[in-house]
């Protein structure tokens, strides 16, 4: 394990294309947000789950994703400055760190490490995370901007199935469609533009294509070795999928990713030189110590071949989202509702999905990473871990830190637990004679 590995990798023509493209696209996104802010053009604050980018892009309303902006401050080592600024205003250490980073940014001049952080001209917040709504109310109070809440009824409990012919489904669609029509009116008002249904149709078509490509990208990791790390590289794919949802550049990016991964698979090139353990990540990343966190798994030659994060934070495009372009608004309502079930409710009931993923991706173990910042993704993880172990025989590791708050990162403890987990995986292999 400690010996130095020498990687002999074939020269690949597509190598680095994804990274180059994602950097350029992200830089451009920040540039556009800065320009919009400078020109006092209304920017919509929206979220990775239930962004309704389809509608906002139809009106050319620039979208700011505060979750993405917040995690980027942590990766850049700046999150604490903003967290403390928010705590100075009275926000508790026990609430979502993303919210506090955002509040801190707004309180300190909106200078983000990657560019000017715009003021919201409107907000789209779905109920896929309750904190989104509370967060939206902070901007509503601060800037007086209109807040649109997209209320999506989710999975209803034991025995619930979304049968598209059922009365419940029809009622839910009606509710969601009504809200989407309300958002269309609000977007027209904010942007000063008329609604163009053909433009919406075109954007939906692009989302369909992005969804197909995203699914193919995820499936690449069924190969051995897995061509990408679902935590490190996967987050890049997901980030671009969100900020460019429905735009031609987003489709092109997904094509670039897929081409690079296909080439890696064709040449047997994996994310790791010597893949020994295939892991599923349930929970989110730890952005304050992103490389350290990943490194603790890689030193055991463990690679994240799949991640629930890439599912729910991908806005449903991993679930075969397919809009019917002949009836765009109705189909948008139906598809958002259908794909929000596994994406939103799946977080709370994902044990069966995890078992299926473990089988399909030949996973050795599951890492449950609970973060204090996000009860949505973290609160029920210990229970899910127990269920997977007892019912599917998949071992799990439950660890805790945070998305953006470095005060919650305990390196020695984390390393000890991760090492112990890999030791147990190792002994399972020895015992089973693999």
């Amino acid at each position, binding site marked *: 394990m400690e010996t130095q590995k020498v990687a002999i990798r074939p020269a690949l023509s597509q190598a680095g294309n994804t990274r180059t493209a994602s950097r350029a696209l992200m830089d451009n996104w920040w540039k556009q947000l800065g320009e919009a802010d400078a020109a006092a053009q209304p920017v919509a604050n929206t979220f990775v789950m239930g962004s309704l980018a389809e509608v906002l892009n139809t009106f050319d309303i620039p979208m700011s994703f505060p979750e993405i902006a917040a995690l980027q401050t942590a990766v850049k080592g700046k999150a604490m400055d903003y967290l403390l600024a928010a705590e100075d205003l009275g926000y508790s250490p026990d*609430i979502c760190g993303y919210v506090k980073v955002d509040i801190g940014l707004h309180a300190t001049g909106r200078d983000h490490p990657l560019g000017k952080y715009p003021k919201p001209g409107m907000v789209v917040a779905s109920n896929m995370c309750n904190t989104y709504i509370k967060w939206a109310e902070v901007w509503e109070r601060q800037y007086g901007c209109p807040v649109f809440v997209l209320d999506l009824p989710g999975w209803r409990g034991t025995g619930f199935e979304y049968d598209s012919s059922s009365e419940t489904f029809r009622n839910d669609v009606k509710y969601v469609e009504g809200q989407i029509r309300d958002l269309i009116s609000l977007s027209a008002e904010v942007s000063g533009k008329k609604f163009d249904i053909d433009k919406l149709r075109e954007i939906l078509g692009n989302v369909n294509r992005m969804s197909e490509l995203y699914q193919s990208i995820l499936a690449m990791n069924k190969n051995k070795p897995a061509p990408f790390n679902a935590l490190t590289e996967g987050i890049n794919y997901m980030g671009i999928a969100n900020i460019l949802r429905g735009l031609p550049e987003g489709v092109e990016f997904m094509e670039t990713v897929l081409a690079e991964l296909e080439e890696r698979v064709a040449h047997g090139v994996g994310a790791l030189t010597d893949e020994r353990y295939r892991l599923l990540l349930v929970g989110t990343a730890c952005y304050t110590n992103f490389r350290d966190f990943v490194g603790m798994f890689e030193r055991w030659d463990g690679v994240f071949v799949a991640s629930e994060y890439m599912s729910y934070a991908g806005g449903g495009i991993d679930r075969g989202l397919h809009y019917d372009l002949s009836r765009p608004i109705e189909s948008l309502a139906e598809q958002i509702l259908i794909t929000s079930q596994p994406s939103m409710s799946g977080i709370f009931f994902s044990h069966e999905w995890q078992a299926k993923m473990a089988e399909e991706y030949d996973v050795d173990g599951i890492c449950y990473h609970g973060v204090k910042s996000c009860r949505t993704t973290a609160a029920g993880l210990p229970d899910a871990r127990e269920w997977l172990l007892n019912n599917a025989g998949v071992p799990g590791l439950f660890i805790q830190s945070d998305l953006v708050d470095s005060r919650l990162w305990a390196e020695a403890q984390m390393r000890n637990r991760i090492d112990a987990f890999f030791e147990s995986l190792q002994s399972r292999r020895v015992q089973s004679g693999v």
Partner: protein
Amino acid sequence: MEEELNEIIEECRTAVEDPEYPAVHQWLEENSNGKVLGHFQVYFPEEIAHAAGMLPLKMKGFDSSVQIREADAHIAAFVCSILRTSLEQALSGRIDFLSMYVTHPICDAARHLNGVWTRQFPELSCQILYLPQNAASPHAPAYLLAEYRRIAGIIEEITGTSITDESLLASIELFNENRRLLRELYQIRRETPEQIGLTDSYLLMAAAGAMPRERHNELLGRALPLIRARDNHPQDKLRIVFEGGYCEQPPIEMLSVLQDVAYVVDDDFMIGLRWLTEDVPTSGDPMRNLAVAYLETSDYSPVQRDPRKPKEDMLLKRIHQSKAEAAIVAAPKMCEPGLEEQVAYDNALTAAGIPHLIMEFEEKTTNFEQARMEIETFAESLLFEFV
């Protein structure tokens, strides 16, 4: 007179505080085929369950009388106490009598309850009632009506009893009466707080969720005239509003500290029991009336988004209507919506020049000295200021 009132309060205390649910067991003994529906905070239209002959039980947490032995292994560390203690009650077998359990996605942590319960109790019907988070939307009433009908259908399947307009109407009338009595109790608190202490008032109110409403109506119907008939002398105490008890409840001992120091003339404890602020109309479609009442004539809490009811404005209204001089803005430990709302409340109260104390609590707290010191210091500083 005092003896009778004490007996009533003791019955309420037992129903609220005893983790073995004696009032529920008594009801089950008297109703051999009776079924119990447990529902988590904040609001559930209990009339629907009642109309099918079920006993609706408002699931709450518990203080240190319930020891956490198993629940911590199922829920992450950084969530509030009520999620753990209510789950512990289930894991310890104390609520095996439930035939149905309903949660609502009130916060990100509570959204996990249904999944955890489903995995732990696969035989129990665990349901989620999706109350609208877009409450001001013109599409919300039709959606909510459909959702109530869906829940009613499941209740009918479990009980084998049809919910008719007549049975639902009868239940609405019973619950209207209950809410009227609770409004009267709070009116006494606002007008003559010396007549009833906070802890006794709390027990009389909270028992509504822990015993059959018929019995609760009877108890309150007897208690209120007895309280009004008291001849207590007003004391020179600060009049305050307590905000932050809409879900997890502070331990009774903490309420006792509060009542020692001030008159708590209004609060949001167990607000779901008082969510509907007016009688639900008894003419027309009763299910529709219930749905419309939830949206149109209802109180507020940090876990409902309704732009028609900005929460800080609603708090100011509560303070003004109760003629309170100050407020305690509390939140349970690790309660994300409550903690987030504290800042908005703080800003609004500061702007309005209303003295207030920001604090946190936990239902399982056993040491109240710090809370006593904080509250006493706050009250004394104001009393001196007012002098």
